[in-house]
């Protein structure tokens, strides 16, 4: 009995198969998801680098010339550079405005996603671990919240609080935390009854440690999936609010504001003012959703072949 038993996997010792490596290889099996991830990466890079790769800062009124208004794609601006995507009614270069708009849209989406995830996760874990009356009350609030359309909740909150990035983020968090809470509670209930949790109790580990070090890491997979999809949802929700004129102010145009600005010119044939920001929004949301779908397929063991 003293001899040790060799591992059955024949992987060389230098390349240990970590869960992450396995996950990555499965993720890239889908060509569509790979393309979507690359596209999303590109969008994020463009948005982050916007101030250095655009000819104009659309927020700086000194750089915006009304004389450049409504120029078609490919025209030359007064300042000398070419506006490849044309310009909008107030003379902003659309290429610059879209990249700056992406910055706002993405950061609003990601920030509200992270805050909603943190809050929802804490509430969901509390519900699953406390059980009984606490759980009942929390889950009924979640049900109530989910029975309202998210757009309606956000619209009401923004109408009450007014415009601004911080207020939009708050509204999106309130509209979305319940999805995270329900997801975490569901998985945590399953995980809580597994034997490794009993083993941790048996080893005298504290409740906090069991919840955060043992149960939570095993709830992360569905949470990541919901997180991606909800982030995409938050971005389109923000665009909707901005389009309706209750979201971000005109001075900080997100993609939704840009689309709304061009809407009035659609019938006069100046399609580019709305269409290009719309395409940017579409590509962003679709690529996030495709990545989210593939994450769900890879992370959900029940869908494994």
């Amino acid at each position, binding site marked *: *009995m*003293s*001899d*040790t*038993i*060799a*591992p*059955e*996997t024949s992987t060389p*010792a230098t390349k*240990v*198969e*970590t*869960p992450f490596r396995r996950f990555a290889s499965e993720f890239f099996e889908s060509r569509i998801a790979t393309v979507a991830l690359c596209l999303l990466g590109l969008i994020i890079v463009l948005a982050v680098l916007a101030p250095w790769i655009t000819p104009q800062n659309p927020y700086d009124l000194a750089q915006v010339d009304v004389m450049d208004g409504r120029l078609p794609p490919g025209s030359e601006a007064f300042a000398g550079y070419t506006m490849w995507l044309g310009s909008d009614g107030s003379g902003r270069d659309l290429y610059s405005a879209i990249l700056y708009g992406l910055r706002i849209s993405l950061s609003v989406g990601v920030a509200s996603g992270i805050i909603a995830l943190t809050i929802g996760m804490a509430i969901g874990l509390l519900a699953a671990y406390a059980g009984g009356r606490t759980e009942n009350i929390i889950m009924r609030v979640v049900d109530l919240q989910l029975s309202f359309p998210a757009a309606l909740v956000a619209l009401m909150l923004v109408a009450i609080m007014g415009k601004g990035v911080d207020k939009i983020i708050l509204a999106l968090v309130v509209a979305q935390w319940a999805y995270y809470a329900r997801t975490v509670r569901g998985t945590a209930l399953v995980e809580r009854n*597994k*034997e*490794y949790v*009993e*083993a*941790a*109790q*048996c*080893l*005298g*580990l*504290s409740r906090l*440690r069991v919840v955060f*070090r*043992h149960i939570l*890491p*095993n709830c992360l997979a569905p949470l990541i999936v919901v997180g991606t999809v909800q982030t995409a949802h938050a971005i389109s929700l923000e665009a909707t609010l901005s389009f309706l004129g209750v979201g971000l102010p005109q001075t900080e145009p997100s993609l939704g504001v840009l689309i709304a600005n061009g809407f009035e010119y659609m019938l006069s044939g100046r399609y580019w003012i709305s269409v290009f920001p719309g395409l940017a929004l579409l590509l962003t949301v679709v690529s996030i959703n495709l990545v989210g779908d593939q994450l769900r397929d890879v992370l959900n063991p029940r869908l494994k072949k």
Partner: protein
Amino acid sequence: MTAPLLEIRGVSKRFTKRLDVAGKIAQHLGSKIREETVHAVDAVDLSIAPGEVLGLVGESGCGKSTLGRVVAGIHGASDGQILYDGTDIAALTGAEKRAATLAIQMIFQDPFASLNPRMRVEDIIGEAPRVHGLVSTSDTSDYVEEVMGKVGLDPSLKRRYPHQFSGGQRQRIGIARALAVKPKFLVCDEAIAALDVSIQAQVINLFMDLRQKLGLTYLFISHDLSVVEHIADRVALMYLGRIVESAPTEELFAAPKHPYTKALLAEAPRLDQRKRDFAPIEGEIPSPLDPPPGCHFNPRCPLAREDCRARRPMLETISPTRAVACHHWTET
């Protein structure tokens, strides 16, 4: 006889499914819905001497795993006491409670569900001793290697994750995790039932080895009579939440007293009886939601009479080492 290391006194465990608001209204309106209580463990007394291996045997659903979990402190008992080294564990606080908790560890049935899939082996084994200060953070790594060596695992595999191991190796990781907090008492809940037969023998041998080297005491829960016969010093038989017979292994297998034990042993497949037909014990194990009155075994028992349906037979000491719970054991 020496003082027992662990004593179970009148321990019961009930699971109650409470009615929600809708259920209460339905009940009020005359529905037959009621609160359901399962007596998973019903007033069990057992004691286990230091260094002893007690086999706890019974059909599925008889409450043996629940009893194991109550002993290991995963479930609280509804009634009764668990005495470790003469003191009631529930009455302890602080450091003493922690010492008692760590002294009793459990080995689980399912080698897949019982290891956290997101932790490396070194964290699975090393977490508890580090958190409880049994080893310092800097020594944890060496300590984990030492414990892995004890259970026959290659210490160089400590950076791996559970899914990279086979069932037998995973069970060894589970054993190492328990041993890492230096327990005196191990509850093995069907610890080998999920393994291949060839691996079962290895793990049983490991248990026997550890018993000798570390002076461990075991509560060995199993439904497999041949395994229990091999490993246990004494056997307790459980039926529907109650202990029906306990005796030293050899005596029990040679001369069973309780009609349930007899029926069970008579029908256990053996090499020398390959040709005969086996007759299953008549009837099903009754639902623990609605156990029969009196002796739980009476609907299936060949000796059952009026008093069996009226009174519960208590566990009666019939010799210094044996006990049986039957009104009519002398007739068998």
